[in-house]
């Protein structure tokens, strides 16, 4: 068993049948740990169309005051959809080195 798994609660203290009893807890699951490639934004190229913001499956594109300003690395899983959808190639996927997993 990995160290990380050892710290989790055992069978006597978790809900039966895999039920999740707490609503809205997906926020606790930081998918950023999955990332092997990180999106990087070129603000000079960006036309603020917000396609990336709409398409991101993890709501990890940050938009402040109607402007896309970057990515939330706790949740960005590095899928590259934003880069693929950007009409002006303002997003580049860069290899994560070293791993950002905590």
């Amino acid at each position, binding site marked *: 068993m990995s160290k990380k798994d050892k710290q989790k609660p055992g069978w006597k203290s*978790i809900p039966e049948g*895999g039920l999740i*009893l707490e*609503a809205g807890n997906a926020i606790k699951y930081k998918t950023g740990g999955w990332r092997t490639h990180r999106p990087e934004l070129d603000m000079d190229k960006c036309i603020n169309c917000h396609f990336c913001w709409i398409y991101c499956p993890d709501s990890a594109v940050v938009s402040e005051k109607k402007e896309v300003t970057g990515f939330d690395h706790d949740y960005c899983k590095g899928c590259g959809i934003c880069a693929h959808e950007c009409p002006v190639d303002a997003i580049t996927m860069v290899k994560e080195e070293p791993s950002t997993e905590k």
Partner: protein
Amino acid sequence: MSNQVALTGNEAMAQAMKQINPDVVAAYPITPQTEVVQMFSQFVADGAVDTEFVTVESEHSAMSATVGAAAGGARAMTATAANGLALMWEIVYIAASTRLPIVMPVVNRALSGPINIHCDHSDAMGARDSGWIQLYAENAQEAYDNAIQAVRIGEHEDVRLPVMVNMDGFIISHAVENLELLADEDVKEFIGEYTAEHTLLDTENPIAVGPLDLQDYYFEHKVQQAEAMENAQKVVVEVAKEYKNLTGRGFEYFEEYKLEDAEIAILALASTAGTAKAAVDKLREEGVKAGLLKLRMFRPFPAKEVAKALSGLKAVAVMDRADTFSTIGGPVFADVRSALYDVKSDVEVVNYIYGLGGRDTTVEDLEFVYNDLQGIVNSGEVNKRVKYLGVRE
């Protein structure tokens, strides 16, 4: 007040379901279970039950709808047989692992192929590792009694597991027997109201049912299931005792028939146990110390109790109405032999695979088995551990 009636096994099972009055029944007809669903749907149409009856297009959907209803806090039932159970397979496991106390009569029939509609246990035995509690019945009375107890067993807070109530196809399901039905209000009182601890319909306390469960928690949930099965052993006994107080009928894990002073015995489950009793009676008249252990509960497997009951014997034949094709015996045999390993008993245990595809198993067939056991005792030798009873060469 109970009520003496003459009913087929299917009619008795439909009556049990009527008296249980589940919130939801989702079922699809399949021989030899068809009448259970047909009669129950008539009760629904007549307003004799409060059940929401869901007609579905397949058994996969039947079990899915039953699981959905149970996750919504309903007392939910379905019923099936053979290939219907096979089509449910995926959701059968999900019902157990989601810890939903569904009660499902299974009218045992041979699994295809070759296609066959008659009795054997290949359907239920295939589901032995699915995490369902499994009860077997010698006759319609026991099938009825098991169905009512199954509600209490499955819903018990220390268990929360689905229960398969098995009944031999045609042999029990289509034969008329004299039996006693409980009064409706007695069943109502015995099973009580069902309140699920967590339900999808509780909007005050929203939950997620059936989420992804990966390397970090799946294993823990499986151990919880195993623990619930451990607990079921205790609960089956408690419920059986209470039921006996009410009806004067029944037993816990198994019935011991003339086993106490026996030297040789058959271990069988379901209707063949009745045939074996006739063989035992005949042999006893001839002075042969023959006995029978009729297993009622196969999952969880009462290993300690079975081992204790058999360890003093000289030879035992375990009857399996299903093959595993492991070449080392049927499913019941495997568990019985494993149970005996711990008690280091000298009892010789052999296996007979019998009655596949509904092949008739007569009193003479079982006498033949007892004679075989006597041969083993006299010679001290087992020439073949696993045999196929009465099959043509």
